[in-house]
């Protein structure tokens, strides 16, 4: 199979215009006037020589750049001018806080709320600047790891585009001004008990907030509190209500599961519990020596996801067919109280054997299996899944039911619909929107903006002055979660008290403050509010200590929700209607990185390659190869998607493993008021999304437009060309010949050399990467970016293959084009002992440390780029332009002070987070001991949910990394080149079901 790369020669003016028009990329890093200037420049360029578009990173900050260079050349002319440094000042504290030791970071526990569900984290703070998010090992949702969103959240904090002022009709107003206005408006509401008062928030699990709402609603009984999440737990909730008659919350204990069936659930590394699930899942797949037990994962899915890639058996099905599939399985396992008639279509169909084998497998593991429905699936699927789990006796063992995390949960679409109709009916005088962006992301059929205009007083609180605030009189900048006090619950109910790391940078207000304004104590600080609430929960003299401990640990003791016994009522759902496939199916998915669009202005997330497609800076209409052939579509072809008389234009991406006749579009793009990074990136799929079919529906038409739209991929070639790159095998293979990977890698013997090698006594750093564990979530890439001050380069530069990530996660396909087997391979610098890159550097800018690190000395590099040419793994990254931002103050605050910020013309690369190594070594030396195993964690290792990356001293035979490298599965990448990499891989293993294999 050929993954079509860039056509060659690739010259397409229209596309380049589109490209120029489409993306802003690095303008992020520049001030507005420069942005304007850059646009002019680009148009000029476009007129002059369109071919060149790609080679502008976006904004030639002409004059400044020029002066810079003149500076450089003058420095050269002016002899030692280049060696003399400008004068710096030091500004010490006036009164130094006790805890603070300048030069040493502090870590504070808090939580990252993901659709209000908490993941406990520890945030690194340098002299009061939060710079990096790490997982909180104590927290059930984290266990020390984190995900992409948590890593990127710190960049959101410093985003210069966040709204910075409280405004009324665009004019700046003081907080008191707002309070006054609010009071007046509320005064009118008092007589009618708040009948005209409406609140709209996103989902929430915050006990404090719930409590505040309770008081407010007591004061205004007729007021209503609506909740809307575009990517909410709609199906889960409705399914639960149907199944149990109450909003039961369900989560899974994959650590106890031998067989897992995912019904369109992308549970690995995404979603609020994704990190924990990935950890538990991987924990059951660690094949070591004679320990060859593995769990088995079946995935039935409507889009190519990392979870599907990890599956031992994957079945691509149109989203609408999954209900039938579930019914078939339910019938197979003899689930009670559900209508499984729809299953007949499947059991009679081509997948009959598959299903039979699956059912058998499930039944062989009662109480040790899990069936997970996807949040994008229909409620019916959820009901069926519950029924199957009950039938398999999984409840209480691998499937846990608890009370809802949200005290009184509501269905997103019902709730929003109610609000909309009230607004239409003119019942709403005062609407307070907190956090959400409904104007952008509400279902189109609600025509939210237009109906909202009927509301007299419209108040919006948000991190950004976004599409919604444009339609509101009042906009209140919201405080970032790292800037204020709050609390939230984890997926299992564990509550975390979120403490601020820094004063609000942009005078943001917390949602608690806002609600207080509607209560009787308008001037309470968030601290007082949150602490007050918890004090009421824990009265008594020991509260202070209790509070300190809870805040310090990042966990409120015994707040996890207890498991509940619930009785299955059977589904009230009508049996699935046979899907009449008129037209194509359209599937709406949140973007893996910018989610529902709220992170659209986050450069790290925009440039982070999406799993599988490695697409950056865009979304696409993803179709299967077969569909593409039928419609005669190529990658990057611009098409018009027409669905229920609504149209959007989208570029095509052909994704192997995508079910046929089904188009997956990612939500969250096409923002108009996201900020300089997010504006106009991609197309807005919400324009097709209706409340009737929020996640999928058939009836889509595709019209080819004939023009092209370039998509910036970081990987064009997903075939290994029969080379031993990412080696994989079956568990059976391993049992018969554990060393199969080593044999394929052809490692030459160490003696095979004319010259004596170098001795590495003392430490010898090395890394082992378990490809079986890696779930391809890309968290390592963004963690590395945050830790090592890696620049964002923008779409044009990614198109030029100049993305800067030091570690990348390659995905390779093998097998059939329609349902390929996918392998993930994280690729950091291999730290070769015989490094080809070092040999060719003319100025000794890269060479070996005494501990075997392949050092890169940025300040010595002159930029011949020879090292990159000679690197067989291509892990070196080059600053073709001045990528790093040397101007925006807030972005400087984010930087890790322990890592140099690279300048133009310099090569950079992974050095195993040498700053962390040095720190640990110094501490150890001072204590007169040697570094303990596990004391040093590289950023990529620390973030990895599946613990696929292990780093340590390979001279210490007892270290984890040594043990892994001793495994038979361990092999070196391109070993036959005799580069002697310090980073090695454990071959990927799968545990297929023989019955399906052989059929």
């Amino acid at each position: 199979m050929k993954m079509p790369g860039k056509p060659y020669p690739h010259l397409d003016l229209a596309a380049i215009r589109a490209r120029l028009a489409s993306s802003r990329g690095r303008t992020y890093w520049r001030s507005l006037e420069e942005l304007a200037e850059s646009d002019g420049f680009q148009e000029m360029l476009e007129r002059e020589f369109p071919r060149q578009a790609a080679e502008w990173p976006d904004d030639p900050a002409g004059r400044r750049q020029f002066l810079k260079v003149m500076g450089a050349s003058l420095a050269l002319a002016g002899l030692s001018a280049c060696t003399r440094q400008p004068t710096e000042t030091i500004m010490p504290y006036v009164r130094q806080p006790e805890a603070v030791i300048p030069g040493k970071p502090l870590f504070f526990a808090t939580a990252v709320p993901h659709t209000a569900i908490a993941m406990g984290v520890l945030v690194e703070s340098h002299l009061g600047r939060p710079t990096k998010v790490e997982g909180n090992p104590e927290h059930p949702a984290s266990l020390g790891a984190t995900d992409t969103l948590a890593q990127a959240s710190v960049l959101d904090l410093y985003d210069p585009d966040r709204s910075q002022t409280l405004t009324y009709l665009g004019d700046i107003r003081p907080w008191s001004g707002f309070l006054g206005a609010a009071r007046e408006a509320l005064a009118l509401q008092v007589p009618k008990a708040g009948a005209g008062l409406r609140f709209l928030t996103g989902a929430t699990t915050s006990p404090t907030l719930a409590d505040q709402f309770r008081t407010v609603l007591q004061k205004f009984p007729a007021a209503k509190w609506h909740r809307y999440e575009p990517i909410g737990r709609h199906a889960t909730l409705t399914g639960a209500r149907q199944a149990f008659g109450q909003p039961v919350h369900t989560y899974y204990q994959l650590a106890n599961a031998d067989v897992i069936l995912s019904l369109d659930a992308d549970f690995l590394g995404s979603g609020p519990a994704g990190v924990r699930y990935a950890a538990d899942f991987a924990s059951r797949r660690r094949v070591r020596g004679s320990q060859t037990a593995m769990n088995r994962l079946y995935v039935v899915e409507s889009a190519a996801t990392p979870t599907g890639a990890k599956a031992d058996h994957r079945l691509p099905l149109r989203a609408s067919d999954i209900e039938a599939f579930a019914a078939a399985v339910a019938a197979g396992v003899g689930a009670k109280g559900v209508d499984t008639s729809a299953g007949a279509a499947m059991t009679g169909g081509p997948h009959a054997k598959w299903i039979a084998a699956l059912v058998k497998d499930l039944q062989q593991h009662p109480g040790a299996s899990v069936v997970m429905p996807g949040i994008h699936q229909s409620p019916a699927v959820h009901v069926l899944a519950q029924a199957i789990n009950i039938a398999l006796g999984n409840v209480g063992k691998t499937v846990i039911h608890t009370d809802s995390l949200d005290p009184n949960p509501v269905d997103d679409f019902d709730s929003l619909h109610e609000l909309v109709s009230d607004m239409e009916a003119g019942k709403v005088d005062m609407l307070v929107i907190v956090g959400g962006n409904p104007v952008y992301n509400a279902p189109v059929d609600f025509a939210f903006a237009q109906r909202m205009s009927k509301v007299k007083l419209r108040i919006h609180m948000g991190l950004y002055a976004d599409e919604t605030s444009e339609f509101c009189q009042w906009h209140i900048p919201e405080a970032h979660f790292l800037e204020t006090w709050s609390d939230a619950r984890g997926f299992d109910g564990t509550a975390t008290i979120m403490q601020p790391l820094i004063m609000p940078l942009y005078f943001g207000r917390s949602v608690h403050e806002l609600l207080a304004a509607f209560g009787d104590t308008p001037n309470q600080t968030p601290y007082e509010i949150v602490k007050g609430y918890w004090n009421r929960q824990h009265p008594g003299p020991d509260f202070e200590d209790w509070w300190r401990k809870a805040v310090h640990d990042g966990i409120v003791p015994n707040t996890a929700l207890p498991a509940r016994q619930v009785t299955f009522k059977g589904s009230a759902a009508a049996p699935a209607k046979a899907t009449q496939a008129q037209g194509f199916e359209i599937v709406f998915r949140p973007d893996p990185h910018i989610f529902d669009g709220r992170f659209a202005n986050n450069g790290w997330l925009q440039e982070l390659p999406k799993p599988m497609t490695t697409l950056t800076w865009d979304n696409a209409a993803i179709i299967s190869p077969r569909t593409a052939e039928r419609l005669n579509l190529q990658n990057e072809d611009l098409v018009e998607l027409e669905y229920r008389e609504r149209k959007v234009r989208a570029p095509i991406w052909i994704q192997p493993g995508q079910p046929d006749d089904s188009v997956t579009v990612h939500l969250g793009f096409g923002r108009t008021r996201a900020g300089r990074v997010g504006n106009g990136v991609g197309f807005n799929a919400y324009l097709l999304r209706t409340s009737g079919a929020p996640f999928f529906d058939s009836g889509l038409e595709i019209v080819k437009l004939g023009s092209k739209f370039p998509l910036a991929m970081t990987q064009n070639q997903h075939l290994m060309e029969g080379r031993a790159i990412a080696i994989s095998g079956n568990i059976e293979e391993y049992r018969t010949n554990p060393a199969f990977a080593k044999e394929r890698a052809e490692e030459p013997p160490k003696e095979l050399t004319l010259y004596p090698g170098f001795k590495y006594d003392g430490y010898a750093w090395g890394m082992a990467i378990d490809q079986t564990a890696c779930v391809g979530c890309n968290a390592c890439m963004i963690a590395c970016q945050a830790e090592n001050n890696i620049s964002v380069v923008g779409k044009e530069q990614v198109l030029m293959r100049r993305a800067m990530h030091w570690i990348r996660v390659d995905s390779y396909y093998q097998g059939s084009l329609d349902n390929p087997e996918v392998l993930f391979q994280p690729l950091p610098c291999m730290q070769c002992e015989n490094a080809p890159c070092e040999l060719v550097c003319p100025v000794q800018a890269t060479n070996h440390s005494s501990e075997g690190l392949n050092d890169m000395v940025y300040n010595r590099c002159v930029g011949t780029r020879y090292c990159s040419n000679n690197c067989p793994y291509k892990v070196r990254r080059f600053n073709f332009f001045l990528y790093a931002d040397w101007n925006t103050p807030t972005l400087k605050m984010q930087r890790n002070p322990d890592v140099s910020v690279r300048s133009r013309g310099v090569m950079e690369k992974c050095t195993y987070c040498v700053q962390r190594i040095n720190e640990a070594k110094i501490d150890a030396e001072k204590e007169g001991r040697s570094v303990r195993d596990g004391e040093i964690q590289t950023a990529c290792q620390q973030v990895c949910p599946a613990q696929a990356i292990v780093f340590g001293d390979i001279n210490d035979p007892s270290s984890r990394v040594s043990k892994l490298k001793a495994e038979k599965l361990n092999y070196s990448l391109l070993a036959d080149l005799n580069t002697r990499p310090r980073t090695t891989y454990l071959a990927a293993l799968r545990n297929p079901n023989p019955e399906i294999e052989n059929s």
Partner: protein
Amino acid sequence: MRPPVYGLMAEFESPTALAAAAREVREKGYRRVEAYSPFPIEEVNEALGLHHNRLPLLVLCGGILGGLTGYLMQYYIAVIDFPINVGGRPLHSWPSFIIITFELTILFAALTTVLGLLGLCGLPMPYHPVFNVPRFVQATRDRFFICIEARDPLFDRHDTAEFLSSLHPREVSEVAH
């Protein structure tokens, strides 16, 4: 005591004539003789007894010096001054050091050649008495000159002039200082 003139110069029209003249001048016993021609003429050199010169020896020394400089510099820098592990290669990677050793050998040798040439010829010397002879400009075109210098013991302003004219030159002229 400085003789009144630099010497006497005879002009010929062909290399053959010059060679013949040179021979006779030598036979007559003159030693401080110089011939001038628009291109090198071996016969004249022989006639004037110009055989070997020290240039090749100089160049050899220059070359050896260059080679040593090249290799020792590299050895010192890579092994002694700041030994760094580069791609696991030995500090003393002699095969890699050969190229620069070679280049510096050539460079030094070539520079010695040119400087040696200038030195041995006493160039640059933009001013020289022979340029005082008006027709000497033809020496770089198509005329051939022979000049007996006044410093020669046998030199006599009158007799030498007589003798030169006996060689059938185109013309004989005195060379002022």
